[in-house]
């Protein structure tokens, strides 16, 4: 390819030192000088000392707190968190005290959403089910961040064979559909016999990490050759420390965005697995289990299915909205000043 290029300077030609004299016009050109008071001459390149200092996060926060999308999703998430931590503040009825007398009863005072087939209070179960769903979502996200983040950061930063091996490994897991893989996993004796929140989390982490790994890898590759990384290496910082101190903090923004969106999808995945009867055990109250239990009655008593499903949707939606709002606020292109 390079031989196709014509040389820009033909050095075989002798150089005649041209003393270029500039152009003069035959026309009369007025010499205009602006009065000095119109444009006061500022000191060269002075620092504006009045503005408040702003970090990436402070800037993002300033941006976020004016966004309705963020305000709504944050309020909802706070509400969900409070419900998960202290459910008894919201529901006075014990969700496990069920009497068949109340089977499929409608709403009445103290029981706003009516009763399930087993005679349990729907509202109370919805409130108490929050904890398991949220726990699975948060733990899975943390697990995925640790596993996927580490894998992606190492692959992106060191490149070479590490990258090749880790990237192919991620591709293999990426190729397996989450639900299919999870069904197989949960059928393994070790998992089937010890079903708990943890088995669900482990399964979801195993099939969920490649997505975060990819995002991390891309963000790390973008930053690993930045001048500030080279500069800190030239200062004597070791390669690994440069990754931890400079590359990863600068790669966090897209990872946080993806993590908050996938938190929602992990809650959905838990509900799906529980619905299929391979997720959380029946002893754990969760929206997925309740939806599964309500399924046979969907035509004559849809409310029993509707309420846990609505709680699930609102929670997931608020995490996805939060992710969207974060993406807007952390977008580096929007930060140019």
């Amino acid at each position, binding site marked *: 390819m390079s031989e196709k290029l014509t040389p820009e300077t033909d050095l075989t030609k002798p150089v005649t*030192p041209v003393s*270029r004299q*500039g*152009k003069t016009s035959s*026309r009369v050109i007025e010499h205009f000088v602006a009065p000095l008071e119109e*444009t006061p*001459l500022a000191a060269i390149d002075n620092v504006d000392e009045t503005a408040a200092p702003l970090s990436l996060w402070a800037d993002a926060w300033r941006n976020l707190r004016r966004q309705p999308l963020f305000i709504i999703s944050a309020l909802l998430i706070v509400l969900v968190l409070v419900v998960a931590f202290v459910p008894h503040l919201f529901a006075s009825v014990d969700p496990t005290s069920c009497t068949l007398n109340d089977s499929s009863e409608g709403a009445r005072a103290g029981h706003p959403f009516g009763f399930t087939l087993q005679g349990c209070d729907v509202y109370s179960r919805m409130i108490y089910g929050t904890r398991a769903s949220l726990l699975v979502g948060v733990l899975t996200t943390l697990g995925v961040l640790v596993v996927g983040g580490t894998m992606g950061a190492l692959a992106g930063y060191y490149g070479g064979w590490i990258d090749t091996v880790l990237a192919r490994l991620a591709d293999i897991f990426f190729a397996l559909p989450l639900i299919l893989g999870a069904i197989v996993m949960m059928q393994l004796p070790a998992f089937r016999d010890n079903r708990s929140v943890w088995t669900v989390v482990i399964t979801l982490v195993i099939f969920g990490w490649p997505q975060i790994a990819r995002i991390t890898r891309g963000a790390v590759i973008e930053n690993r050759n930045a001048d500030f990384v080279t*500069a800190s290496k030239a200062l004597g910082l070791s390669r690994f420390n440069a990754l931890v101190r400079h590359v990863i903090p600068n790669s966090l923004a897209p990872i946080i965005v993806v993590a908050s969106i996938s938190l929602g999808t992990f809650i959905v995945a838990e509900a799906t697995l529980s619905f299929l009867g391979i997720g959380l055990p029946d002893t754990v109250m969760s929206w997925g289990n309740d939806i599964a239990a309500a399924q046979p009655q969907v035509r004559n008593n849809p409310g029993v299915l509707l309420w846990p499903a609505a709680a699930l949707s609102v929670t997931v939606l608020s995490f996805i909205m939060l992710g969207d709002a974060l993406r807007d606020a952390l977008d580096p292109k929007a930060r140019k000043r």
Partner: protein
Amino acid sequence: MSNHATGGTANPGAARTDDVPLLEIRDLAITFETSNGPINAVRNAHLTIMPGETVAIVGESGSGKSTTALAAIGLLPSNGRVSGGQILFDGEDIANASEKRIIELRGNSIGMVPQDPMSNLNPVWKIGFQVKETLKANGLAGANSKERVAEVLAEAGLPDAANRAKQYPHEFSGGMRQRALIAIGLACRPRLLIADEPTSALDVTVQRQILDHLDRMTSELGTAVLLITHDLGLAAERAEKLVVMYKGQVVESGPALEILRNPQHPYTQRLVNSAPSLASRRLQSQKAKDALAAAVAGLDTPLDDENDPAHVGKAPTDAGLAPSSVPAAPAQPVRAARPAPNGERKGAQAGETILEVKNLTRVFKLRGALGKSTDFKAVDDVSFSVPRGTTMAIVGESGSGKSTVAQMALSLLAPTEGSILFDGVEVNSLKGKALFDFRRRVQPIFQDPYGSLDPMFNIFRTIEEPLKIHKIGDSKSREKKVRELLDQVSMPASTMHRFPNELSGGQRQRIAIARALALNPDVIICDEAVSALDVLVQAQVLNLLNELQEDLGLTYLFITHDLAVVRQIADHVTVMQKGRVVEAASTDEVFSNPRQVYTQELLNAIPGATLLV
């Protein structure tokens, strides 16, 4: 406004058609709507272009020079609008003309050559197609469009134009792409050509060829040119008339040479004084000037050495202190009078070689077709040595291998062959602790002030980082040191709490210098450290570097493509071309008596160098 212009329109019978301005901008105001409220980018701008005349708008980034020109062709960004004044093209106000009318004018009445040749050609279409597109849009393609395309390209100086038209932009070098863009701009024979920094992205020698060609073409065709540039020397050389803009206003306008030789407005004076292409000698700090005066008076000038306690772990030794070592060599009074570095390290003596590069070669493997790789010698048998306390400049165009040399000198890249001796020790063999110590003594400053500071670190953490890495002092003494360093680079201490995105390019570069100074290095390697900065800021940073050199006895390895900057800062020059050293001598010698054709070519290409005599 220009008197003769209004006079011309008042007596149309008596006026030559020549005397009616082609483009006249009157009291133009341009406003941008931003999220922080409207910004007046341009105020009260006025300029007149007569037919066939070349007018240059000069100003630093953000001065409104491009915005003014873009308004004339109706290409303001969507959040910008003309909020006042008139743009008269041939007597017709086009400031608020309809989209349809503007499109009619574009191409065949007003052409445009954009700034960046790399991004302004569509990579998926052949060059010929892109030229034809312009011709078609203006109904000038005719029956035999292919021939016309080749003709247009040949005019712009592309050899073998018919075949070139069949190639894609990636097959063209930067200079050729710019030629293609000029061909597109002039294809429809516009009466006015707006050239927005047409050569800023190109090497100096290519820049000169392109501008020469543009000159020739436009004078043959009688096209008026509105040249936008940040380079005062270039503007003065290429235009009859200069318009100097500052903060959105025209501060001075008039005949180019007159403004250059006799600038009236203080801003223009500042600009003329600091334009590197017009400088004729090395920078001198006030201290050096005093020293010179003292030396002349035959006085002893003891230098106050900077015994500051925060230079932790470095007990200042007076061993290298050789105040007023002034063997007044008549040929180089300036050089001789520069005070010897008040060396903080033992054995530091001016003249002793601190960095020596011997037969340095670096080969890169280029991936070819079918997995075969070919060797590419980026650096080929390069040798030079840098005496302590002086500045060595490595000059060359893009691809000459100068930055690769810098990388190897920083020990960030291993040489294929050859050696680099730092203070007599082979850098390449350094490992572990020794390498760690070497890092402390050699520091880089990079070109891109936007990329070299971690955006997540505030300024305090940025400057503190080297001290922390090398475990120097406790948090209190480190903070004190950071304050001192900020003071050394003339930044207020309050900057500590700011983040890089709040600072301008020049300010960031000063922070980068402060970080490099934190460890009291011996050598600082500046890789195009001032290339990305505006002229005035560049001069400020160069002055700072020069003063620091004198105060701290620093040695600089200065990598640059800009010979004009070399003259201001360097003591010795190594000229590189295609990986090889073609000329090496002292700065004065290279400038007064260049031996190689290539060096002459480079020197010749400095715009405006001959105008100020």
